[in-house]
């Protein structure tokens, strides 16, 4: 009993000092009850709805405050507060030490010495041999005809039952610069093998989302001009090498008047292929106090700015490539030296990309 009294007294003494803290703590705990800890479904859903509503109101309040601050700053003539940059996967990509730097001497030296330098320096004009795997498919031939129209100076040969190594020899004799093998699986083209010659690297790509020209709405018809090449986002050394491989497929003297552009855009290790015809146009936008108003050009009342825009019309097929392996010599699965092979354990991190 005495003990009890003592504890009571102690609590009483301490309680006065800490009571405020305790009350605050308790209040905080009450407001942070997770809805998932409530067993009663009705009550739980009510609490959850309330929480969501509260969050929505908070968000709106924040947005209003931000807008008001920006407007105020603009009116006062000061700099508006800096816009927050959203966090994207590209922003938070894992730092890769093989990213090419613009001032890398080694890179340029490597470029001069690699297999594509002959073609890229215009010593040889690219001559492409396109063939298929042994069993052809439904969509294969259509895709190949479109490829023939995209890549200038390309020829299609039927596969027969020749070994790939024999085909490489044959192509070397006939002075081709690259071989493209379209591989089909389940009646759909699903892999692309690009072999550089004479003993260039072999890149094996997985092909997906193929859309043929006839399936594109409002497609255009490509001409025979040499296309321009756009290679985006090939940052690392491996990416750079693949970029040069792709570059060596196309002639190095594009005909700008043909206004034809072929794009290989790398995003998160997927290479998107697009083929467009483009045109530059001027668009007049009226620059006035309020932002973003576009009006027709009036008689010089306000400063009329003319913006140059580019308009694209898609023609030709559209597909996605993903690199599966890059081999140093020509095609030789058993004895070859692989520069890069995709392994499933490379997919574990969502922020790590190799191209």
């Amino acid at each position: 009993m005495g003990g009890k009294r003592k504890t009571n007294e102690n609590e009483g003494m301490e309680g006065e000092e800490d009571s405020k803290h305790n009350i605050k703590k308790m209040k905080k705990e009450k407001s942070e009850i997770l809805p998932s800890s409530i067993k009663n479904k009705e009550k739980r859903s009510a609490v959850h709805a309330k929480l969501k509503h509260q969050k929505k109101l908070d968000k709106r309040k924040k947005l209003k405050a931000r807008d008001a601050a920006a407007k105020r700053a603009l009116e006062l003539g000061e700099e508006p507060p800096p816009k927050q940059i959203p966090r994207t996967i590209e922003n938070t990509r894992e730092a890769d030490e093989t990213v090419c730097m613009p001032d890398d001497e080694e890179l340029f030296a490597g470029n001069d010495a690699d297999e594509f330098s002959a073609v890229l320096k215009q010593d040889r004009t690219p001559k492409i041999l396109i063939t298929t795997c042994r069993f052809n498919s439904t969509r294969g031939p259509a895709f190949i005809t479109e490829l023939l129209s995209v890549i200038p100076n390309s020829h299609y040969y039927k596969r027969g039952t020749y070994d790939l190594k024999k085909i490489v020899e044959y192509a070397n004799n006939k002075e081709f610069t690259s071989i493209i093998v379209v591989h089909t699986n389940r009646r759909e083209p699903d892999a692309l093998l690009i072999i550089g010659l004479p003993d260039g690297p072999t890149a094996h790509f997985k092909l997906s989302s193929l859309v043929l020209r006839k399936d594109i709405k409002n497609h255009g018809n490509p001409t025979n001009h040499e296309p321009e090449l756009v290679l985006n986002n090939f940052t690392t050394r491996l990416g750079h090498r693949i970029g040069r491989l792709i570059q060596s497929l196309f002639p190095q003297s594009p005909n700008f008047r043909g206004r034809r552009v072929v794009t290989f855009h790398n995003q998160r290790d997927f290479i998107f292929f697009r083929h467009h015809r483009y045109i530059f146009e001027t668009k007049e936008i009226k620059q006035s106090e309020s932002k973003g108003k576009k009006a027709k050009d009036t008689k010089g009342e306000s400063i009329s700015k003319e913006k140059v825009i580019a308009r694209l019309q898609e023609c030709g097929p559209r597909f996605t490539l993903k690199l599966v392996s890059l081999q140093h010599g020509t095609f030789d699965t058993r004895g070859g030296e692989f520069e890069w092979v995709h392994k499933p354990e490379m997919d574990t991190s969502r922020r790590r990309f190799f191209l």
Partner: protein
Amino acid sequence: MQHDEVIWQVIRHKHCSFMSKITTGIFCRNPYNVTGICNRSSCPLANSRYATIRDHDGVFYLYMKTIERAHKPNDLWERVKLPRNYEKALELIDKHLMYWPKLLVHKIKQRLTKMTQMRIRMRKLALKTREKIMTTPRKEKKREARREEKAEKAAVLDKAIEKELLARLENGIYDGIYNLPFNKFLQTLDTDDLQAEDENEEESEVEYVEGNFELEEEDDIEDLGMKDYHIDEEVDDDDDDDDDDDDEVNAVEEQRVRRKSKPAHEKSEKDEFGKKLKKRPRIHVEVEHEGGERQKVTF
């Protein structure tokens, strides 16, 4: 011993673990079976005197079973190695199975023939390359499809391409082909003369102008490689353009709304923008065709 019949009755009508019935017939999975069919005469269990040919690592062996050894299951099968040569193997079989029933010998020889043919074919095939089917787990395929879709959304492709083309336009790769107004040239209306002159100078000196070798961002590393050829292009174009450059500065606006494929040889010339922005510009469009006729359209 003489209970072959009993064995057969039991096996066939009750249960034999080597028997497999499929739509086309009844087969025997016993490795010692000569024909492979479940038959009274082909069953190795129900025949006390039996022989087979079996293949081990490409070498053929003749196996024989006699009734004298029926009580010694360990030594039941006598094995004889057959020579590689087909004819010699046949002779050896004849020698060993001299007094055996003709049917069995015949079946054995048939089996030998078939196996030699198979051996030849396997060896030929091993020299050729065959495609090996590699499977990917379903989970990975789905994961890849999902990631590809998201990557496609993240890469706003049309905008990216347009941006790249505009960047190239500003870098001056297309000089001489397009004479489009740039923002910076229009910002102030007073300094039009200077700017017009600047543009003229750029036009005539286009062969000496080098593009930017600095990379603004890491992405356009390919521009490094591409710079090699754009200079050649400009040298070719220059000859054509010097003829057509007017020193007169007319305000020009040309609209091309055609969506069909443009024939290769048609050249369209636009004059430079600039000075006459103050006055309401009279827009001159000169379209030159290969035929030589100059058509002027005034708006």
